Each structure stands twice: as C-alpha cells, then as structure tokens.
C-alpha cells in the first residue's frame, strides 16, 4: 500500500507514526541532540577551538592536559583539543558525503537489478560478489592508494566499495514489489520502465534505504578514520580523528590520551548513529506500527468529533 497523503497535513500519517515512535525513546532523542552538537562544533570550529590546529610550538611538546591545553599537546606542540575540533569536520562530514555517494550508486543499480532480473541481475550480483570478497577495507585501501593518498580518494574508495549492500537491499524490496498490481497498472497505462522504477518502486524503498544509510554512516566513520590511521586517508598536517590517533600512537605509554581521546569521539558518534538506526528499524517493525497506528487513528477521530 502506498502512503496516503492527507490534505492540509505537512507529513503523511505513515511518516508521523514513524517520527512519533522515534521520539518516544529517550536514547534516540539524546543521540539526535548529541549529533547536532557535534555538527555545530564541527561547523563552528574556528569560533570554538581555543587555538590554531596547525601552529607548531616547540616550547610545548607533549604536554599533559592543563588549563591552557585542556587535552595537552602533541609531539609538535600543537593543541590537541583544537585539532580534534577541526578534525571533526573531516571525520563527521566526509562520511555523510560517502553515504550520499553510496545511495547514488547503490539505489539505481539495485532498482535495475531487481526490476529487470534475469541476466542483468545475474551479472550485477556477480559484480557485488566480487567486490564483497575483499575483506574489510582492503579493497578501499588499494583504490585509495591508486587514486593518490588523500581524503578525497579515501572517500571515493569507500563509496566504490560500499554500494553493494545498498544495491542488494533495494533489489530485495523491488523483487518483492514488482509483481504487485500497482506496477502492472502502471505498465498498462504505458509508463516507461524508468518511470516505473523511480516513481512507483523507489518510494517503497525509502525506509530500507534510510535504515541502511543510517547504519552505514557508523561503519564509514570507522573505516575513514581507519584509512587515515594507516596512512591512505587524510594527510598531515590536516587533522582528522584517525590521523590524530595515528600520530599519538607512538606515544601511547607517555601520553595515552593522544590516541585514546579521538577514539572515544568516534565511538560516541558511531554509537549515536547506531542507536538512531536501530530505533528506526524497530519503528518500521509492522507489529509495533500497527499498535501505534491504532493510537493515532483514535486520536484523529477524537479531533474530528470536537
């Protein structure tokens, strides 16, 4: 069934049910607030960071946390807190870009694979098999290396590796939907394949895409930081959470916070995305929805009566 859009209401009932289920969980609200805070800090880095993240100060090498340097200084005397704040720009926003690219590649491929089926599907699925037979980020490392070390190559590499599961999710939904009456009806009135895919089938994939994208954000943050950690991502002196940890790794016994603190931020951010993604998946659980839909309907009827 397609979502019914009521006149005079900004959002469809379906969407409002989802939002209401989401907002009933305190953890979800906390996660959303936390992410908003991180975004603001990242955007406003020049205003918030106490010092310049690039200024080398040979008079203040590897200082422990003090009032002047809340998180101490690194091996070049740079303020670690400022570097972490600036580093959030890459570590938080680049993964969003990567997931955007993953959606842009994965969704059309999944639509085509699921809609046409047969040989086209077979070929596309074998390609995803091949891409997925590289363990972890190893293929991304290779691609990023070939494209030249840097954030941009790392981001592109992660997108080129990451589209497969998105394509499979979309393909699965499309295969279940394409036999239904409304698709047949669209064919009868002469809609082109392209329009059927994007106008009829795609709206049914919105939620699975959203859940997958949410979960993917967490893994891409970890992967991107990992690429920087081993040297194919962000290049010095640019800061991101992976490279700050990599630079601090040489001093883990003297100044452990250099490597540990960026990691805590990664965990917190990834945790927030995972919590939201988890709740979103629950919110789309038909059982829970039906319950809440009943509550909604009762409420609306009451409004009508009054």
């Amino acid at each position: 069934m397609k979502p019914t859009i009521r006149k005079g209401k900004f959002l469809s009932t379906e969407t409002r049910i989802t939002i209401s289920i989401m907002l009933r969980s305190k953890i979800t609200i906390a996660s959303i607030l936390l992410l908003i805070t991180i975004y603001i800090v990242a955007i406003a880095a020049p205003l918030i960071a106490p010092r310049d993240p690039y200024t080398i100060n040979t008079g203040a090498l590897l200082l422990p946390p003090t009032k002047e340097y809340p998180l101490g200084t690194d091996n070049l005397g740079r303020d670690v807190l400022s570097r972490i704040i600036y580093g959030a720009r890459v570590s938080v926003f680049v993964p969003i870009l990567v997931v955007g690219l993953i959606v842009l590649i994965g969704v059309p491929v999944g639509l085509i694979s699921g809609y046409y089926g047969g040989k086209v599907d077979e070929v596309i699925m074998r390609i995803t098999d091949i891409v997925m037979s590289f363990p972890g980020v190893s293929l991304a490392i290779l691609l990023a290396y070939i494209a030249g070390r840097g954030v941009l190559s790392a981001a592109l590499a992660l997108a080129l590796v990451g589209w497969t599961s998105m394509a499979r999710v979309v393909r699965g939904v499309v295969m279940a939907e394409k036999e239904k009456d409304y698709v047949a009806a669209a064919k009868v009135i002469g809609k082109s394949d392209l329009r059927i895919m994007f106008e009829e089938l795609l709206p049914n994939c919105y939620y699975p895409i959203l859940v997958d994208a949410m979960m993917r954000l967490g893994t891409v943050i970890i992967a991107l930081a990992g690429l920087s950690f081993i040297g194919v991502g962000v290049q010095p002196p640019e800061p991101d959470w992976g490279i700050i940890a990599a630079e601090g790794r040489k001093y883990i016994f003297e100044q452990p916070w250099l490597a540990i603190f960026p990691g805590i931020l990664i965990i917190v951010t990834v945790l927030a995305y995972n919590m939201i993604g988890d709740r979103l998946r629950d919110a789309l659980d038909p059982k829970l929805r039906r319950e809440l839909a009943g509550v909604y309907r009762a409420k609306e009827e009451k409004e009508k009566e009054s």
Partner: protein
Amino acid sequence: MKLRYYILRRALLQVVVVFGVLTLVFFATKIIPSNPLAVLLGIEGMQDKALVEQTIKIWKLDRPIWEQYFYYLSNLLRGEFGRSILTRAPVLQDLRVRFPATVELAIFGFLIAMVIAIPAGILSAVYRDSIIDHLSRIFSIVGVSGPEWWWGIILLVVFYFFFGFGGSGRLSPGTPYPPFITGMYLIDSLLIGRFDIFLDALSHITLPAIALGITRSGLTSRLVRSSMLEVLREDYIKTARMKGLRERVVIYRHALRNALIAPVTYMGFLFGSMLGGAIFVETVFNWQGMGLYLVNAIFASDYPAIQGAVILMAIIYSTANLLVDILYAFIDPRVRY
C-alpha cells in the same frame, strides 16, 4: 539438487569470483586517473631513470592494455606476484611467512569472539528483557562502535603498561623463534615441545586477539540472540516443555543446537572481517602478519606488495566463504534446493 552438484556449482562460482578479483585489481589501476608509473614506483621512485625503464619492461606498460592484462593474469596464475620494492624479495615469499601469523591471529580472535558471543547471546535470549539482556546488548553495541585499533591501544595501555602482560610483536625479545613448520607459533612451539615459547606466544596473541574479538562478538551475540529467540518460539520447544523436561534440558539440548545453525552462515563473513580488522590490530601490536605488511607497503609506496597482499586476502576470504557454504549445505539440507 544433489549435494555434489551444489558443491560443484558453488566451486565454479568461486572460480568466477577469483577471476573477477584479479580483473578488478588490474583495471582499478587503469580506470582510476593516475599515472601508472607513480602508482608502481611512488613519487621518489620516478626520479630513477633506470628503475622507470625496468618497471615499464616488467609490467609491459608500453604494450596495449589487453596484452598487459593477459600478461598480468598469466603471471598471477603462475604465482608470480612480482618483487617487493621494500623487502626486495618475491611478494609471495614474503606473504608465505606473513600469512600464518595473520591466520593464527584471526582464528584466536574468532575463538574469543565466540566464547564471549555465544553465552552472551543465549543468556540474552533466555532471560529476555532482564538486566543480563540489557547489559549484553549494551556491550555488543559499544563493541561494534569502536574501531579495532582503538580497542588495541586501550588493551595495550591497560594490560601491557600497567600489568606487564603481553606486549608488542609475536614473542618477547630474547625468546627464540620456533622453527617454521606451520608458521603459527602456538602450534610450532608445541610441536617441538617448547612449552616456554608456547606460553610467551600465548601471552602475546591474547591482547590483539581480544581487540579483534570484541568488535566481532557484538555482531555475533546479537545474531545468536535473535536466532535463539526464534527457536524458543518453535513448536518442538513447546512440546519439550509440555513433556515436563527441565528448562535446562530444553534450552541446552533442544534449543541451542538449532539456534546455532543460522550463525554458521555468518562465520565466513566473520573470518573475513577479522582479516580486514587485522590490518589495524597488527599495526597497533606490531604483529608481523599480512595486515602490517600491507601498511608498511603503503608507507614505502610498494605497489607489488600492496597488490599481492590485497589479492591474497580476497582469495583467502572467498575460499573461507566457499567452505562455510559447503559446510552449511551439509548441516541444513534446505539450502541445496
């Protein structure tokens, strides 16, 4: 479909995948806009005229692309992965030594993940919505959210720095290397009957294996939990309960065995993700495996080594998946149809 045909079909698919992996790696260097010489030699290597000429000759860069491709394929199929720029040894020879180190780490990490995840998942399902369930779910979601290298650093600081347990590398300095039999120190030391080497190797592998295991146990325990919940709803469990069997017998004898079938399919993926994770854990623990080899190669702009390590990892991983699929077909006849 007969089991034989299933295995045959699955094995053929494996050939296609390995061929695809080799092709993908080759064309990646051609499609991504970059100077192939810069990729092969690094910026510094390009200054050396003799080296440039030699590289063009080795990789046949002056020939048409399809000729390069067939040359590349025939080389790899003969096991000729080229020479590492960094170690100056044939890449395959380097990897032969590194490979057992990574596999040993991955297997140990796998065992640790299982030891944590299976009981956690079962308890979580049996005592659903209790405090145990909540704790185990929090642990699993936090475990998944942390990068492997971060867990590695934490473990190294806490256990090595404060308690002197384990440490960098595969053995303590001064401990003699066991002779190369399998390449896995835990096994080799036992084979020659040197218990002291075994204990030293064991203390060194524990921390990196935990770092690998923590992140994977989260995913696994969730899977065991949901699988167990599903099984506990089945009719045969109700029957067992109605027969008056004790709850422990119902859970351990009837439910558990069935609940662990589904996670088996996931084992291949798990092993592969450990090979991937080993890249980071080996870097932190200076573990001389394939992952560290790859990272060192990146810093040295050593393309033959990078290419060899990545291809070998993909082949190991897809072979592990092949074995798991076949194993699963034995356990659960339904997949064959």
